[in-house]
């Protein structure tokens, strides 16, 4: 069984995720870019995943929302850069709960023997923003995480 590998190296604002799938590259690319397929796997099962727009082309916008059963919504959006293809694609990524902290994601897909490895390289604007996303952006109790993020960001505001 494949294992998701996540690295958040010290001293650089990157997150690297890689995972191998038992499927050819074209199919994996479809799963990442066709909204009817994306909605069936992306995000925790306990959230409803609603796709607002997903325009996979150079300059196209994307946005989706995770909704919990209390009606809280967590929105994510960005833009595609360059022409997406099964070789890979580049997109910006912004969590609406932390506006302005835009990350740049590059996904590459490599096929060997009918299996496809997807590697995502995410670049954040600072190490603090990277750590905050990892620590707070993807876990339960996101609201609680926002307060900690506010406190963290408060330390980053330059003093005149």
């Amino acid at each position, binding site marked *: 069984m494949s294992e998701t590998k996540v690295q958040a190296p010290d001293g650089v604002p990157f997150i690297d995720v890689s995972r191998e799938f038992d499927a050819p590259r074209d199919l994996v690319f*479809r799963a990442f870019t066709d909204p009817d397929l994306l909605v069936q*796997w*992306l995000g925790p099962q*306990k959230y409803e995943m609603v796709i607002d727009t997903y325009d996979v082309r150079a300059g196209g916008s994307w946005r989706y929302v995770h909704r919990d059963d209390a009606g809280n919504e967590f929105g994510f959006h960005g833009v595609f850069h360059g022409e997406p293809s099964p070789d890979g694609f580049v997109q910006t990524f912004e969590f609406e709960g932390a506006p302005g902290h835009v990350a740049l994601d590059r996904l590459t897909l490599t096929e060997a023997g009918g299996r496809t490895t997807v590697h995502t390289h995410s670049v954040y604007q600072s190490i603090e923003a990277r*750590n905050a996303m*990892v620590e707070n952006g993807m876990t339960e109790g996101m609201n609680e995480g926002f307060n900690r993020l506010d406190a963290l960001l408060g330390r980053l505001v330059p003093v005149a």
Partner: protein
Amino acid sequence: MQPTNLDAVFGALADPTRRAILARLTAGDRTVAEIAAPFAMSQPAISRHLKVLEGAGLITRSRRATARLSHLEAAPLRDATEWLAKYQAWWDESHGRLDALLARLQADPDPTPDPSGSRPTE
């Protein structure tokens, strides 16, 4: 308890001598001389490493008579591994669902869309 400074923890763990010092302290509190004994390194050099570990909250230090004892603190190490584990768990869950979707698509290339695909489940 101070919140964990993840950058300081990862910076402290980035050095193999400091990792070895932490491993030694799992056996119990030790003086600087006791920690330095297995290393081909002077006590002042070991003390510098201990300062970094203390700054990251990975050890606390106290006095016993004339000796300074170092004590391994479990919480920062646990915090450092936990935050990455949560992120990985988030992606693990989605990737598991993608595995299942890819298997379904390869078995039946033109399935009717799963109407419950985006509904929350427990």
